[in-house]
Each structure stands twice: as structure tokens, then as C-alpha cells.
């Protein structure tokens, strides 16, 4: 998140004459960027697994059987839990809920962030002051305790988890998007649109928004990472819907059944690694977006830097 804030000044080149061109080079830049390709490959695998889960492991993965706490073997590649569930099936099925919640939370909080950020930047004055105040308050309130409090009062369920994560997650994206929208708001082409009498909605969504596509994308990725991580944290605390199969719930049950103390490492390792892999893949894509759009971070070594490192 902080890096995204720090790295904005790179992308403010004038795009009035050919609004499409930078976008094409942006996509090209992503497709030739090693980080982006790695990240997208990992995400592709996970999305495919999530979609194919019912075909790969038919039946209810959380059904309790007598084969309890088996070590990884040819029959159960990742062993079984203390309740005799196949860990691999749990992990693959878990990706469905985790990715679904992560993506939903990511899109929803980015959407709110776009609305708030654009409205702040476009209308300015009182509306900006008020919206910024609300955004900053939400940013400052400690996220996880707020999550816990909200989840404790709301009836448990998947809807609650998503709602709570959006409530705590939108503010970060709103702040980033507002500052970017502000710098575009001050450009001449926006002033021209205002003078020519275009409606506010059109200016915000057709003139300003397309010019900050890369920042929106970065924010979206950060929000999805947040959503997946926070969902896992919430569920690990037992505050999600414990009857669904997800990576966070797998870890909750692993902790609950004492997998750590009995030495069943295979029960808690896979779900955690999956969360980390997805978050890492998304972070890679995010860094790639930064690199492509911010020339300062590209791996071109300027002569000055070379001289200094050579002199030492």
C-alpha cells in the first residue's frame, strides 16, 4: 500500500491527444514483464483449480471419516486431518471460497474507493473535506480489532464476512485514488470538459477515470490481497462461517484440533502456503504495474548509479 502511494508521480504524462496509446503500451509492458507473467501464471493455476474443484474432488470434502491424522501418502497426497478429511481436497475446495471472497471484497472496495476518490477530487471544497475526513478516520481505526468487533455483532455467514471486509478495506483505495484523481482534475482537458458543459458523471467516469487505469488496477490488486488475507485472519479466529470450506477455516480447524501440538504439520501447511502464493502472485503483478508505469523503478541502470556502485 505504501509503495503505491509513494510511486505515483511517474505517471502523469499528458494523454489528451491519444488516450488509447499509453494503455496499449501498458498492456505490452505487463506482458513482457517477468514479474507480471509469473504472477499471472500462478493466479491462472489457482483459478483453474478453484473452477475444477468439484470435478477433481467430487463429494463433500469436509465429510468426517475414520481415517484420522494420516501422514501424506500415495492415497492422500497431503494426508488427512484429525477428523479424517483429505487435506488436498479441503485445500482445493477451500480456494473457491477464498478466491471468491477475495475478489468480491477487492472489486467492491475498489469500486467504493473510485466513487469516493473521484467525487472528492472532482467536487472539491466541502465534499472533499467531508469525504477525506471519513476516509482518514477509517484508515486510522485499527483494522483487525474493528473487524473482530463488527463480526462479533453481525450474524455469522459469508455475507457478513464480505460486508465487514469491505467496510474496513475501502478507505485505503479511496485515499490513493483521490490523490491521483486530484492531479488529473487539474489538467487542462478536464477544465475544457467542464467549460464545454459536460455532466459531472461523464467527466468523472469518461474523462478522469480512464486516465488513472493503472492506479485503479494497482489498488484493485492490493484490495484483493487484503481481502484474502483478512478473510483468512477472521476465519482463523473462528469469526467466519465455520461450516464452509475455505483456507482460513481449514487453518481454524487445524488450530482447533491441535494439529500443531500433535505434529500434523501437513494439516496447516497447505492452506497457508496457498494464501501466501496467491498474495505473492498478486503482489508481483502489482509491482509489475508499478514498474511499467513508473520509469524510475524500471531496471535500467542510470550511469550515475553504476559509477557509484563501481567506485566502492
Amino acid at each position: 500500500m505504501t509503495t503505491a502511494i509513494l510511486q505515483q508521480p511517474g505517471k502523469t504524462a499528458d494523454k489528451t491527444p491519444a488516450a488509447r496509446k499509453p494503455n496499449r503500451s501498458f498492456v505490452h509492458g505487463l506482458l513482457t514483464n517477468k514479474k507480471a507473467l509469473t504472477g499471472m501464471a500462478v493466479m491462472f493455476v489457482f483459478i483453474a483449480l478453484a473452477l475444477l474443484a468439484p470435478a477433481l474432488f467430487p463429494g463433500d470434502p469436509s465429510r468426517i471419516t475414520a481415517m484420522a491424522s494420516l501422514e501424506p501418502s500415495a492415497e492422500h497426497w497431503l494426508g488427512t486431518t484429525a477428523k479424517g478429511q483429505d487435506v488436498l481436497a479441503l485445500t482445493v475446495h477451500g480456494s473457491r471460497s477464498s478466491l471468491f471472497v477475495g475478489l468480491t471484497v477487492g472489486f467492491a472496495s475498489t469500486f467504493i474507493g473510485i466513487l469516493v476518490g473521484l467525487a472528492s477530487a472532482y467536487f472539491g471544497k466541502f465534499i472533499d473535506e467531508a469525504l477525506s475526513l471519513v476516509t482518514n478516520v477509517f484508515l486510522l481505526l485499527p483494522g483487525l480489532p474493528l473487524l473482530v468487533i463488527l463480526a462479533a455483532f453481525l450474524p455469522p455467514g459469508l455475507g457478513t464476512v464480505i460486508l465487514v471486509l469491505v467496510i474496513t478495506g475501502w478507505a485505503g483505495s479511496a485515499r490513493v485514488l483521490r490523490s491521483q484523481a486530484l492531479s488529473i482534475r487539474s489538467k487542462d482537458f478536464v477544465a475544457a470538459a467542464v467549460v464545454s458543459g459536460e455532466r459531472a458523471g461523464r467527466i468523472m467516469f469518461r474523462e478522469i477515470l480512464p486516465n488513472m487505469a493503472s492506479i485503479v488496477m494497482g489498488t484493485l490488486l492490493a484490495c484483493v490481497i487484503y481481502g484474502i488475507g483478512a478473510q483468512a485472519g477472521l476465519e482463523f479466529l473462528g469469526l467466519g462461517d465455520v461450516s464452509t470450506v475455505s483456507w482460513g477455516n481449514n487453518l481454524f480447524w487445524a488450530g482447533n484440533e491441535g494439529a500443531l501440538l500433535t505434529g500434523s504439520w501437513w494439516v496447516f501447511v497447505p492452506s497457508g502456503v496457498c494464501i501466501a502464493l496467491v498474495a505473492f502472485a498478486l503482489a508481483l503483478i502489482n509491482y509489475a504495474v508499478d514498474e511499467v508505469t513508473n520509469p524510475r523503478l524500471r531496471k535500467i541502470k542510470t550511469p550515475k548509479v553504476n559509477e557509484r556502485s563501481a567506485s566502492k
Partner: protein
Amino acid sequence: MRFILRRLGFYLIAFWASITLNFLLPRFMPGDPVSRMFARSQDRMQPEQIEALRKLLGVDDRPLWEQYADYLHNIFTGQMGVSISRFPTPVTEVIASQIGWTLLLGGTALVIAAVVGNLLGILAAWRRGGAIDSALPPLLVFIGSFPYFWLAMGALYLFGVVLNWFPIRHAFTDGLEPAFTWEFIGDVGAHLVLPALTIVLVSIGGWMLGMRNTMIATNSEDYITMAEAKGLRPSRIMLRYAARNAMLPSVTSFGMGLGFVVGGALLTEVVFAYPGVGYQLLNAVQGLDYPLMQGLFLTITAAVLLANFLVDILYVRLDPRVRSN
């Protein structure tokens, strides 16, 4: 001065928002959680205590604004009701006995992560493309991708259960009397290692990358070239010229980082059963102890806001530009 006052006003508004949230939550949530709580613990309580709790949590026939005024009055006079899971201890007492542990854990981890992370960031940016710069950031980002609590579980399993190097639960050995003796301090230190280590591991990457990116921008400033032209020692340029000017964003993230540490500490505390406010918060949730939950949330919020305010004051001292306007 104006800056400080503005910030102070902002923090007061934020604090007011969290109090109001606390006030509204039990009153407007579906499913009536408060009645559930009373149904569970009614037989243990005195009638007047039940009455006080009903008022605190909004099971009350008075008009809303009157309840609100009463609620604010209670909060500012420190009356947060009695804890239900630890009946009849007042909420304030429960919190007071636990906040020290969280401050110890979170503070230690935050300071270590910030100092080491910033130093690594300085070095990485200074020797751009060198060993630190190319190997560490991806590694730390990868470690940072793991959920806090999962790394904590991993550390607990590896160093606690398998290798048995460190104790795996609580803040000190059961039966040991808390006192300022070397034995007790050493014991607390040993219990602190694993929880603190996990927080440091997860958060250090953010510090390092933030510092590195600001340093890269600072390194291309003219005054750095000037300092090199003057023939100053590289270490002096790195620390006194470049790093010093790149520090400001890190100072701001230190305040923000506190919020994350409180959140991260919550999960870590749960894994290690560390007796801080985070662990207590989860216990309160599980025990449907709404007064304690609310008290803990307010305390955590107040702590985070206060820390941010202190950071702002520090910022004014560090950055003359803020002082001049």
C-alpha cells in the same frame, strides 16, 4: 501550532467516531446479541448490575439521544461496566492488567522491524542492484505474503514443538511470581522471542521497500551529487545526506504501522495464547462478553490515535516545512 491543533481535532473526531460506532453497534444489529448474552449469564449477576449493563448496551426504553449522552458520560468517567467472562471484575481492570503485555510485544516487534527494515532499505537503495537490493526484497515480500497467524503457527511448530527451543504459550512460566528479578525478566524474554519474531518477519519487508523507494528518489537529488563532488566519505553521504532526507515517510508509516502491529499482534497473541489485549478481545468475543469487547476496542483505538498524535508532534520537529505554514 496550527498543524498540531488541526491534527488533534482530527484525532478527537476519529475517537468520537469509534465511540459512536461502539454505541450504535449493539443497538442496531439484527439478532439481538445482547439478549443472548444475558440469557447465558443472568443467574450470576445482581439485578442492579444487569440494569447497568442493559443501559450500557442499549436494552433500554429511553430515547436514543438520552442513552447517547449517558453513554458518553460513562465513557469519559471510565465506567465501562463489568466484564462478564471474568465477572465481577470491572472492564477497566481487566484491560489494565493486559495492555502492558501487548505494548511489550507490539513495541519490541515494531521497533526491531522499523530499525532493521529501514537500515536494509538504505543499504539496498545505496548499492542499487547489489546483493541486498536484488535478493532481499522478493524474499521479504514473499514472507510478508504469508498470513501473520500462519507464520506464527509455523514458528510455534518448528521452534516450539519440534526443536523445543522456546516456550510456546503465555508470557511467562506458570507459577513464576512476576517480579523485577533476572529470572523473571529472562523468562519473559524467552516467551517473547517467537511472537515478536513472527511480527518482525511479516512487517520488515514493508519498511525496507518503502525506505528503498524513497532513497532511490533522494539519491538522484542534486545535493547528493554535490556532496560526492566535495569528496565526502560515502558512508557520510549515505546516512547524513540521503537517508536523513528519506526518513520522513518512514516516520509517518511508524504511526500507521502501530495500527497494523496492534492487529497483527492480535492474531499472534491468539496463536501463542499471549495474555495481551488481542487475546483477551478474542476471548471476549467467544464468551459473548460485549462490555469487555467494547472496552478493549476503545482502548486499542485510543492507543493507536495517541501514538499517531505523538508521531505528528515529532513530524513537526523533523520537517520545518510543516512548521512554516
